[in-house]
């Protein structure tokens, strides 16, 4: 026969075990505060290649002939990548102003931008400028007319044209000298509005999550 004390102990053990498991289950999904209620957020997020300011020079025929055939690059360029000034204002109030450089130790990688600004929900006039800091004659790298393609033969035929095309493609993919967003945005409570760079249109674009991202 089981003694009453032992029964009592089993009951206590059962209750304690159930309580411990209940606590563990509750601690497994405790509602932990994350963002303050009613706030909204402006997020800037994009990545794009910074513009490269170059001084290019077309090699002479003699210089080209000194190179092996596969090394004969028509135009050689020297230069550096541009830096940008990011300025964010909301309702005339300056939220941030900073210099943005390309990633990497030599800053030759794309610009990766990710900034969050907490705002109250409601309408806000947002002014965002992303301005190239270095002055140049134009928006793109200096274009240089290709040298004669006469020396290109065999598998290297047409290389000069390809170099021009590639240089133009890089210039087009680079961030323009000025990106500007000056608009009024409606911030819903506990929602994020993302401003990103559209490389096809080469402009800043506003995403609010209503449409799926690209």
């Amino acid at each position, binding site marked *: 026969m089981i003694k009453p004390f032992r029964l009592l*102990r089993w009951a206590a*053990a059962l209750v304690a075990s159930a309580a411990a498991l209940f606590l*563990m*289950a*509750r601690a*497994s999904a405790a509602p932990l*505060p994350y963002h303050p209620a009613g706030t909204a957020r402006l997020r800037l997020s994009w990545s794009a290649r910074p513009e490269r300011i170059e001084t290019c020079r077309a090699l002479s025929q003699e210089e080209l002939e000194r190179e092996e055939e596969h090394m004969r690059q028509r135009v050689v360029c020297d230069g550096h990548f541009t830096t940008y000034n990011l300025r964010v204002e909301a309702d005339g109030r300056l939220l941030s102003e900073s210099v943005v450089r390309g990633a990497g130790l030599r800053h030759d990688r794309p610009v990766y931008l990710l900034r969050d600004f907490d705002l109250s929900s409601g309408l806000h006039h947002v002014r965002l400028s992303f301005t190239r800091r270095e002055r140049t004659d134009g928006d793109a790298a200096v274009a240089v007319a290709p040298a004669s393609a006469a020396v290109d033969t065999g598998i290297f035929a047409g290389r000069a044209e390809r170099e021009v095309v590639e240089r133009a493609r890089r210039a087009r993919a680079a961030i323009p000298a000025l990106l500007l967003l000056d608009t009024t945005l409606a911030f819903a409570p506990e929602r*994020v509005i993302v401003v990103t760079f559209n490389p096809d249109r080469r402009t800043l674009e506003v995403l*609010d999550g209503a449409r799926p991202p690209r």
Partner: protein
Amino acid sequence: MRLLERGARRLLTAIDAAATRLYGSAWNPVYQTGTVAVTMLLVLIATGLYLLLFYRVGSPSASVARLAADPWVGSWMRSLHRYASDLFVIAAALHAFRMFAQARSWGPRALAWVSGLVLFGAGIACAWTGFVMAWDSFGERLARDGSRLLDVLPIFSEPLSRIFAGDGPVPSAFFFVNLFVHIAVPLAMGVALWLHVSRVARPVLLPPKPLLWTIVAALTATSVVLPAPLGEPANAFALAHTTPTDLTVAWWLPLSERLAAGEVWGAMLVAAFVALVVPRAARRPREGPFAPSVVDPRLCTGCNQCPQDCPWDAITMVQRTDGRPTLLAQVDPTRCVSCGICAGSCAPMGIGPPGRSGRDQMTAVRSTPEPARADGAAIVAVCCEQAPRGHVTELRTRGAFVHLVPCVGNLHSSVIEHFVRRGAPGVIVFGCPPRDCVGREGPKWLHERVFNDREAELQPRVDRRRVRVATLAPGGLGEAIAALGAFSHDLSILDRPDREIDTAFEVVCDSVTSDAPEP
């Protein structure tokens, strides 16, 4: 450090005592924290394999939501996976706390301590990736915090945080890599677990079957009754007010979010450093009670019993150089933890830590007063020095003659024989709970030597009815008093034993002791 250890020891004793009062020493899950952690790893693997069948890296949130909505298997299987990870963390933390409090982290045990820390950290990392897999608001929160921490390291060319910015869909590659890490980390944990137990003989990886299945059943019942909730699907354009956070696994999250990434890394490095230097800070000089065992070559008969009993594989048998045809036991001091189990395993008393060999025990026991009380001879209660002082005092007040030993696994059976033949009505040996023995296998080997004729056995001439082995655990005084009372009752129907003065084994030991070298 000693102060910290003492405080931890007091807290641990209180926890042990509370759990023993509830469950009894045999069923106390707090003694089984290490094996419970391993059990949870197995549960995680089993449930994880099932969940993997339904997980889609292309639509993580939806696939987990489908699982959570399946009331028959998916929901509780997912919850069981979650709760098993919680219990793993709790059990592993308690296990580490026990090892620290009982000063079992240094010397030969340092490898187990360090690999245990690695296992704990890997468990947290694995849980982290697991929550990210679900890709609900909590998973997204963890992913954001993790990427924030990783972005300050010069690893990725593009910051990981941009993945979750919302200007593009989160790539499937991210979830694939996360899944890969979630699966690869447990494989690495298998290697760490092997290292963790590599220095112990006969590692016990699972709790007793009844306890194992009870824990699994209780967790399963919890999963059915209280399924783990799933947060809202992750949304880069939403700012969740709260997230359903697993505080057991992600207890560090509220602190981490308040600190800069560099500060978090700094805090983690400091915490890891502090944890890693515990073995060094806790170490004792290898002398006195911490001196490794030594072998007296003249007494060693090469019976090969001490290597079999040593819980740390610290003893090997080597060729003798003195021309005798037997092998000789050799102790590796870098593996010996001075548990003294070998002293109890050596019939000719030729091995043991200095001052605790069989010969030393006999010398000590001969100098103790007669186990007498007013109404006759008292029952001898041999108690482990690890037992709570209050419990031992209580046994004394109940008329028992208490004889303290460093560990009952050290106890040479001749000591028991000595007491019986010197007129004690009976000897009851109170050991620690089997899974809480600092010598790992003390109570097991003692029982085998006393009742199952394991080498260094209690001699057949000793009436087994006068010997009993019981447990004296913190909080288990009631059990111990009941065992003492039952033993006393059983002895009362036996005749009073005759007291012998000159026992043969004493003569043998005297002659050996007189010319044995000092260790």
